[in-house]
């Protein structure tokens, strides 16, 4: 009888899953949801599952919680020790090398498990027992409620962040030039005035009306100023303390 009997259907699925993950890497640019559905079992389940089946074949006396813990543990151990292996080679830790590593372990482990498993063992994939269904439903209820709670909490965090209103002003020297920038983290578009002053006298000014999350950047020749004086950029926002940045001229004493 072929090793790919119903008793080994779980191992066959593991191999196909690993190949599918490899295919996704070759294709690239798959949607995040698809990548997640394929990749999460490849990281957390498949390597540990096949290694456990190869080294410690399933038995009637086995406890499901132990096998689940060992499956996750061995999968993470493969990742942890595999990372050190990948680090030895030039390509290093990339999606492609991770897929190759975890896929190889899965395929080889599944092949080894097929040779070691008793062909008379009951199939791994079978109809779930009623208690498993109800236990799963109970856990799913709790998880669903936790997801709702996370959405509520996430919304609260966003509201709090939105309540923080500020703008950023910067001025950086670049050789003979300066870069002046303004970024708005205000909740609505606001008018502001940017003034560039040298030795205390305003040389240029701009009226800005930046939308939320909008950035304004200007590259300018660095204005000449006397040693010990400053080139100052000041952002005036109505009802707020002005933002001010500066560059000193000349060597410090």
């Amino acid at each position, binding site marked *: 009888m072929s090793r790919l009997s119903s008793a080994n259907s779980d191992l066959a699925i593991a191999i196909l899953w690993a190949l599918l993950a490899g295919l996704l890497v070759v294709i690239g640019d798959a949607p*995040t949801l698809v*990548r*997640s559905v394929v*990749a*999460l079992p*490849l*990281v957390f389940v498949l390597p540990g599952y096949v*290694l*456990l089946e*190869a*080294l*410690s*074949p399933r038995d009637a006396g086995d*406890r499901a*919680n*132990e096998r689940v*813990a060992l499956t*996750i*543990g061995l999968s*993470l151990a*493969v*990742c*942890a020790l595999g*990372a050190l292996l990948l*680090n030895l080679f030039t*390509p290093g*830790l990339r999606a492609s090398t991770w897929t190759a590593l975890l896929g190889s372990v899965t395929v080889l482990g599944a092949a080894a498990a097929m*040779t070691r498993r008793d062909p008379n063992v009951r199939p791994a994939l079978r109809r779930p027992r009623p*208690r498993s269904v*109800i*236990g799963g*439903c*109970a*856990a799913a209820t*709790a998880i*669903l*409620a*936790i997801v*709702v*709670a996370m959405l509520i*909490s*996430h919304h*609260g*965090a*966003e*509201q709090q*962040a939105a309540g923080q209103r*500020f703008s950023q002003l*910067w001025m*950086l*020297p670049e050789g003979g030039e300066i870069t002046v920038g303004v970024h708005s983290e205000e909740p609505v578009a606001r008018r502001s005035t940017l003034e560039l002053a040298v030795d205390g006298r305003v040389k240029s000014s701009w009226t800005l009306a930046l939308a939320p999350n909008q950035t304004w950047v200007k590259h300018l020749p660095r204005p000449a100023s006397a040693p010990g004086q400053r080139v100052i950029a000041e*952002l005036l926002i109505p009802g707020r303390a002005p*933002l*001010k*940045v500066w*560059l*000193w001229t000349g*060597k*410090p*004493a």
Partner: protein
Amino acid sequence: MSSASVNPTARRRRGLPTAAGRPDQQWVWLVGIALTIGLAAIALALADTASRQGHGWAQPLYWAALVLLFAPASARLLMPSPQRYERVVLLVMLALGLYAVKVLTSPAAFTFTDELQQLRGLADVERTHHLFTPNPLVAAYPFFPAMVAITSAVNQLTGLGAFTSGLIVIGAARLMWVLALFALFERVSGSSRLAAVATVVTMTNPNFTYFEADWAYESLALPMAIVALLGVSRIPELRSRLRKGISSDWPAVAIALALSLAVIVTHHMSTAWLVTMLLGWAVAMLVRRRSAIGPAHVPLVALVVSLAAAAWYWFVARNAIADELGPTASSSISALGALVHGSTGGKQVFHAASGAASPPAEQLFGFAAVAIALALLGVGLAALWVRKRKVPRLGFVLAGLAALYVPSLVLRLTQAGTETANRASEFVFIGIGFLAALAMSTSLALPGRVGRVLEGARAWPVLWVACIVLFVGGITIGWAPYDRQPGRYEVSADSRSIDRQGVAAAKWAGAWLPRNSLFTGDVTNRLLMYSYGHLNPQSGSIDGYSVPNLFLSTKFGPEQLTIIKGDKIRYVVADQRLTELVSQTGFPFGEEGSSKFNRSRPLPIATMAKFEAVHGLDRVFDSGAIRIYDAEALLR
């Protein structure tokens, strides 16, 4: 006599399901408790949102929600009636429900200190595709790279982003923790009920709800270490499994070794815990060769793991571990010595460095939790003595682990030892959990009133109330009030100091300033500018001057210039809010130079304003609260 006519007590004694344990009853309990956990999570989310908005009822709702989350599930788990399967599902729901408490606190981004310290490590791995990039904040992190590497694998393969990937990794670790710990306790105690009791008590440790749930290497390593111990405990029963080929114990030993080696490259203290457990177990087995596990296996695994850990520590991570753990250990020991000799008065417990005291109710729960833990330790040890011939060797090792709780309490009396003591709790409570289960199941048969009291205390409702007190008290002991819930910005208050303006300034630095430039600032901005800004922080001291004195002085003089030049500090990050609010931890720049200012007041305005007049310090960035100065001209 048919089993249906046996009364419930007799049924329980004979191992038959009681009325409450009938399958149809189980589902009512399971679904009911699932709903209470879900309801508690939603209540917690509302409490956190209310806390962000500054409502006074946020904190009472928070505590009510926590008790709602913990109490029903723990009650059912302590009852004698549930079947094994029900206990496993309840434990999983409870462990994941408690994980949600931390996730709900920071639902959109990493905000905990350890998380931000490691975030840059993840970015470095994904930028360089290699491990071991130095981390100036915590030198040991790069040498225990497994957690960051696994998160990077998840992130690169799924595209979910660093935060979601991190949550999934730690969620999987939490699932692994509860399943493996229950299995380990079940093997040692021989009872699913006692295993559930021990697991519930372990969950009440002060670090379980928050610290063990953050995206940090210990949160992954400790569950892996428990799985490794489980792997070792399974070795003998796997002998007859293999149909052909390798017919010895080696495959099972290989599983245990693979798990243990993974722990070694994940976290130093978890490795130390695992090695101690294995060595203790090996010694106990060699002393009394009556265990079911063949005498060769545990000592062999213990030896190999010890040698591998020693090799990793010595050849790879020696300096980093010395840098990280050396000062902590030496300061804890010297603080303890000073306390014993009476040269210091010790720390005022339940008081922040700024002088603020925890509310009396929190203090009461904290002291009650310590008293209960000590009582469980004492009675559990007595129970161990009574059952010494029936308890497996690993049980004695767990009892030894629990006994470390007493010295850890003494360390809490010192400022320097508090963190060490707090970090020890997740390890020692595994032993206390086991002793609690043993205490519950063993009659000490003491005469007189004490005996009657102890016998009465073995009833599950008594232990249930004790567990609730342990759980609530554990949180008040282990986690500062400002850190339990989100809320308005506070100065140097861990996650409460991580706000949008700080993160935005750091991201600006990451986009506009040269990568790896040296900078300094307060502890929060050091974290943010390092993790998001890709700048490298400077702290400590240079030429005898403490770097924080750059900020703590109201004048910019030769000392400040020496600090900038000596440490080659290119950027100075000045957060104006330090002059407006009191630091919650009392150490806005770390503990160096902490004696230089009054911790019960904000810093003087002049400490930040002094930079404005320094010729050569260009202010290159201003977002209102945060200002960045470029000291390049001073370095020339």
